[in-house]
């Protein structure tokens, strides 16, 4: 659906529904109009990372439903008071609204209470309302695969991690990396540098340089731009793509990427609204459901590491490999999770401590 067509359809639809309303047949007309879906993004669609991933899914929704949907998005919405205004605006003209960052949770909930007929889908939070669902991806499963690769391929045993903010989402990713790496190599260490931004290519690159200069030879990140990976490429160490396949920036360095694959979920939720079967829910999908996927492994990964990584991937999907299975010690060496048990989802979602081997 091209832009000009979209606008014309929209105007025609608006005019027609206005006409129909005066004739007292508004409901009939509304059923034929395209379903309107709005998206609020925290970054620019051109970030080539997190927001880019969501926008790829939005385009997939358009491609899947064609004329039956009409999508709009607002990018670069900061996680502050502005978010509520943007979400409210989206709610006034859409039937379904996706808000795609943790910081939009409270604004989304406030707006959802004001617009009971509009459906809301909020990513990576925990609040739900009768018209607000929560959805999240188990990114830490990808981190376990990455940690396994790092355990095999790092020579110094020091793994660099460019961090954004110490929220549970990020903390559990760091921990999953360290735990998986130490299963392979017990002396492995994850060194974290916080940039206190989701997105600032310059600063992310600086953090990566600081880590590499201090002996790190394997770079991972939980920020949204390709800068840390690109720095890894320039310095000749290994790296991992974040949220999207970033091979173009680091043809030699990128071993794989943790790719967020939102499209199937978005399509199913749009379909549910169309069918009238949409219900509020809270889902946390991972590799099994295909929401988290690994990009194709690079040829640079040695056979042994490749097999180990693929085994972890398969184990996570069939449930035999649990990234947070005990025994787990924290930074002080105290046993937090005894052998034979594992951290529950609830414990993961409020994780505020680091496992042994993390320097953060």
């Amino acid at each position: 659906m091209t832009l000009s067509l979209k606008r014309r359809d929209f105007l025609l639809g608006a005019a027609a529904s206005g006409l129909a309303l005066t004739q007292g047949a508004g409901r009939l007309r509304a059923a034929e109009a395209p379903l309107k879906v709005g998206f609020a993004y925290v970054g620019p669609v051109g970030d080539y990372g997190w927001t880019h991933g969501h926008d790829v899914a939005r385009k997939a929704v358009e491609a899947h439903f064609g004329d039956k949907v009409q999508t709009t998005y607002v990018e670069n919405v900061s996680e502050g008071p502005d978010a509520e205004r943007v979400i409210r605006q989206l709610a006034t003209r859409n039937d379904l609204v996706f808000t795609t960052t943790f910081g939009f949770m409270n604004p989304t909930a406030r707006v959802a209470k004001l617009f009971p007929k509009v459906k809301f889908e909020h990513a990576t939070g925990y609040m739900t309302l009768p018209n607000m669902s929560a959805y999240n991806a188990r990114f830490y499963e990808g981190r376990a695969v990455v940690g396994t690769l790092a355990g095999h391929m790092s020579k110094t045993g020091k793994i660099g991690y460019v961090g954004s903010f110490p929220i549970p989402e990020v903390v559990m990713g760091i921990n999953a990396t360290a735990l998986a790496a130490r299963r392979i190599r017990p002396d492995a260490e994850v060194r974290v540098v916080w940039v206190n931004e989701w997105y600032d290519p310059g600063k992310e690159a600086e953090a990566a340089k600081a880590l590499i200069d201090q002996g790190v030879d394997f770079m991972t990140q939980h920020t949204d731009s390709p800068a840390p990976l690109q720095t890894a490429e320039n310095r000749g160490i290994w790296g991992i793509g974040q949220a999207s396949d970033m091979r173009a920036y680091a043809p030699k360095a990128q071993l794989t990427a943790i790719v967020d694959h939102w499209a199937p979920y978005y399509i199913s939720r749009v379909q549910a609204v169309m069918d009238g079967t949409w219900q509020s829910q809270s889902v946390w999908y991972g590799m099994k459901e295909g929401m988290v996927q690994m990009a194709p492994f690079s040829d640079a990964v040695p056979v042994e590491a490749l097999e180990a990584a693929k085994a972890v991937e398969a184990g996570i999907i069939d449930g035999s490999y649990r990234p947070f299975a005990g025994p787990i010690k924290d930074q002080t060496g105290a046993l937090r999770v005894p052998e034979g048990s594992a951290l529950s989802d609830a414990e993961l979602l409020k994780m505020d401590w680091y496992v042994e081997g993390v320097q953060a």
Partner: protein
Amino acid sequence: MDQQVLLPLLLSVIGAATPLLLAAIGELVTEKAGVLNLGVEGMMLSGAVLGFAATVATGSPALGILAAAAGGIALALGFGVLTLTLMANQVAAGLALTIFGIGLSALVGADFVGMPVEPLAKLDLPVLTELPVVGPLLFHHDALVYLSLLLTGGVALFLRRGRGGLVLRAVGESAEAAHSLGYHVVRVRYLAVAFGGLTSGLAGAYLSLSYTPMWAEGMTGGRGWIALALVAFASWRPGRVLLGAYLFGGVGILQLYAQGAGGIGVPSQVMSMLPYVATIVILTVIAAGRWRGRLDAPACLGKPFRPST
């Protein structure tokens, strides 16, 4: 911290300081002429995207740098038309320029997302570059690093020694007086604004072609605003701009290295605040203390000038 870490740390500081220095030295000239251009961030982004696009299209980084400079100048001249010819409010027009630059660069850059480009070549000097420590530290950088230092020196000389510098300062201190002496106030201001656009464009090009050789929307990450703060921090003196740029860059880098080394017991957020805290403290001290008279803000800064006949 041992030698092996110290050298790369200093190199990182140079990298972090260069875009700040480039943007700030141009803004200093603009402000010295009495014009407050808050559009630095927007001009940097246009420079970044045009530099990147031209480099990808032509394969020549030199043309990329020229395109970045031209893009910065074009935006600055637009600001000039609004504020100098049409007498629009400088603060409002500057903010509009930033917002415009963000949008324009995203539009132009949409097709360039996800494209890699070769970083700018380092200029090596025959013997000097091979010197231990000093060689890599001082003589192994790309053209824009050297250019930033040369421009700073040039601006300092121009403002202090040159006749042109005297005219520029006169226009910024008392536009009426300069006008009655027969100087073309608006023309001088146009030139100053254009120079600010040029260096902001170069600052953007440094980010997209050298520092993180890629195009990504909003990649300047607020450095334009820091450059603006730097000019006030430096009390409108080129030497202090140089010092401030390296100080701001240095603090930012140092805190990242400190974290990588295991932390120093201070939360990273506090460390990130330091450059801004330093700006506030220094401005307060300068404004309140016995250096009061030396704050040196150009007297006509931000005031429109309408030539009386």
